[in-house]
């Protein structure tokens, strides 16, 4: 077919084209996909070319960040299924009670769902499990504390479980000498 000649040339041209960006990455030659949030005004072809140049220079990263805003119809899930997700998410989110857990010396925090645990012993076991990769010393030299609604740092275990889960805002695992001193006779 005659059309083929033109396309093969374009292929060869593309292979020699110099451009910015990582090898193998091909910046889009067209404007960013439509988003539900931004409704751009009707563009002339000139504006389109402007947008394309900007995108090419910005490289892959910009376009990927931009597509984080919800693109219409993507990912391709039927509206029927989407509506079910919203409903399911609503029930799931209503159910969870996620709080952050920090441990002295650990490079990052974790999050746990307090509703999963039935009591203090399970919570302790769950936390030990979660942070065992950071155990530099034996397990006994740490104290589990939490920040309550008033912002005070409290020792975990003093109040009934339900009262604890309703007032706990975040957890903090204190290690070392400070912890031993603090524990005293309460354990």
């Amino acid at each position, binding site marked *: 077919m005659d059309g083929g000649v033109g396309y093969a040339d374009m292929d060869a041209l593309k292979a020699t084209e110099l451009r910015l960006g990582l090898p193998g990455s091909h910046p889009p030659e067209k404007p960013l*996909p439509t988003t539900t949030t931004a409704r751009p005004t*009707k563009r002339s072809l000139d504006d389109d070319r402007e947008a394309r140049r900007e995108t090419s220079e910005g490289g892959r990263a910009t376009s990927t960040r931009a*597509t984080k805003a919800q693109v219409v*119809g993507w990912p391709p899930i039927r509206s*029927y299924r989407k509506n079910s997700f919203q409903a*399911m998410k609503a029930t799931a989110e209503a159910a969870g009670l996620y709080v952050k857990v920090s441990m002295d010396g650990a490079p990052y925090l974790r999050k746990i769902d307090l509703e999963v645990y039935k009591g203090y012993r399970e919570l302790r076991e769950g936390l030990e499990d979660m942070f065992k990769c950071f155990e530099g010393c034996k397990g006994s030299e740490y104290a589990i504390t939490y920040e309550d609604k008033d912002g005070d740092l409290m020792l975990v275990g003093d109040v009934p479980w339900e009262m604890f889960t309703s007032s706990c805002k975040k957890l903090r695992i204190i290690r070392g000498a400070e912890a031993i001193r603090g524990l005293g006779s309460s354990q």
Partner: protein
Amino acid sequence: MVGGFRWAAMFPDEVWEHVFSFLPADADRNAAALVCRAWYRIERRSRWRVFVGNCYAVEPAAAVRRFPEVRAAAIKGKPHFADFNLVPSDWGGGAEAWVEAMAEGWPHLEELRLKRMVVSDDCLELIARCFKNFKVLSLVSCEGFSTAGLAAIAANCRNLRELDLHENEVEDNCLHWMSHFPESFASLVTLNIACLEGEVNVSVLERLIGRCPNLKTLRLNHSVPLERLVGLLHRVPQLVDLGTGKFAAQHHPELFSKLESAIAGCKNLKSLSGFWEAGPTYLPAIYSVCEGLTSLNLSYATLQGPELIKLISRCKNLQRLWVMDLIEDDGLIAVAASCKLLQELRVFPSDPYGAAQPISLTEHGLVAISAGCPMLHSVLYFCRQMTNAALLTVAKNCPNFTCFRLCIMEPHTPDYITRQPLDAGFSAIVESCKHLRRLSLSGLLTDLVFKSIGASANCLEMLSVAFAGDGDAGLHYILSGCKNLRKLEIRDCPFGDKPLLDNAAKLETMRSLWMSSCSVTLGACRQLARKMPLLNVEVINERKRGLPLELQPDNCPVEKLYIYRTVAGPRSDTPSCVWILR
């Protein structure tokens, strides 16, 4: 007639009708009808099943006139991308024109299946009144009707066998529609009301199914509580296909054992679905029927990996599995080990928009399934990462794929290890899978993948492309290759005018082409429309700014384009955002 065939003319028409009844596909009957006038005449009078893939491809009256003895009709309306809100809601696909023509010309119609059409209550009432021997109503992804319309069907269709409502948007304005089935009505074989939003009167339902001894399929909606499922199942132990209602309740040992025995009592169960809000508590109640299951749809259940594994490992005879990505790679590895008869797998995303807790569902799960399930031929897989190596392995393991749909959720995602485009991976799929009929692409892709597809995908009938390609060459490869291509849908790709105009003739061999957010101009569409009178070139422009389309210059960019072949000419029901170019 040519000399050697005079003997053929000696056979009475009935003989040829009988011969034609053995032709399996419409395409074969179409071919027979082209042989000579006699065969055309005989074939058209004996065709009783008709499939219209695009409701605008032919005038309803013309179809009804040509095939006067039709008993079963299936019609499709909106383009596939309407499922993802890319088609304006008023675009069209109304069923009235067809239902009116059919009521007029096919009074003996028994089966009607509509997909992606706008069906009004008036349509349903017309169906209920006009077709005395109506047996099957199947509505898939339709909208525009309410439970009042269903009441009319229930009241009037005395011989109804199937009422199959699959993923429709149904307005709930008639709570007691099911009470309209007369007491004497007992012919139901299939009842699928899973998509209905409203409350269902379970007592009425119990009485209805209790008097239908042939009921094989019952799919409930999420309003039916678990406690009532027990009573329903007792009335239909012959059930083959069950869609549960809500599959959660307060933990109650008595309810559990009642449910367990009710389900075990259904010795013929092959298919399970529903499972809304399913949790680990009641799931074990279905263990007893797992071994007999061939189809399991857990795609609305937010069950976690471990529970899913416990359940699915018991389903040794599973052929079809629909599940959420919460199953994760570990779960799919377990499926690969247990479900050796698996043919179809669909994995849906549990959190498509958020960046919530990352789910460990990766290319490893897909590779495991491809290795462990030798009968696998159809896959739909949503994930966040992929490699060419994984796709090469999948292609090698599964040369029998007929349908491969991979959706990597972030557009333009490359092979996460090599950072290369996924051209090599998808090329391997089309080169290895010689019977591939349907393909959906995703991830970072250049024109190279289209070169492979155009050259190798000889059986491909439907191709979905998004955020892929470098330029015109990509589209040209597809349109100049893929000799069996019927449907092509493209969004957000840098494809422009040249490949469309160069391959105009190809478009007449296809059912339809959808292009949105590409680089097509109005001028090219005008040229195409002038050149190809048997195509409807629909330009869809939802932003009504500036000049009307007739006055726009040729270089005006086209947002959305839908081109389809038709013998009916331009349709007369276009909304204001759609222009049909001439």
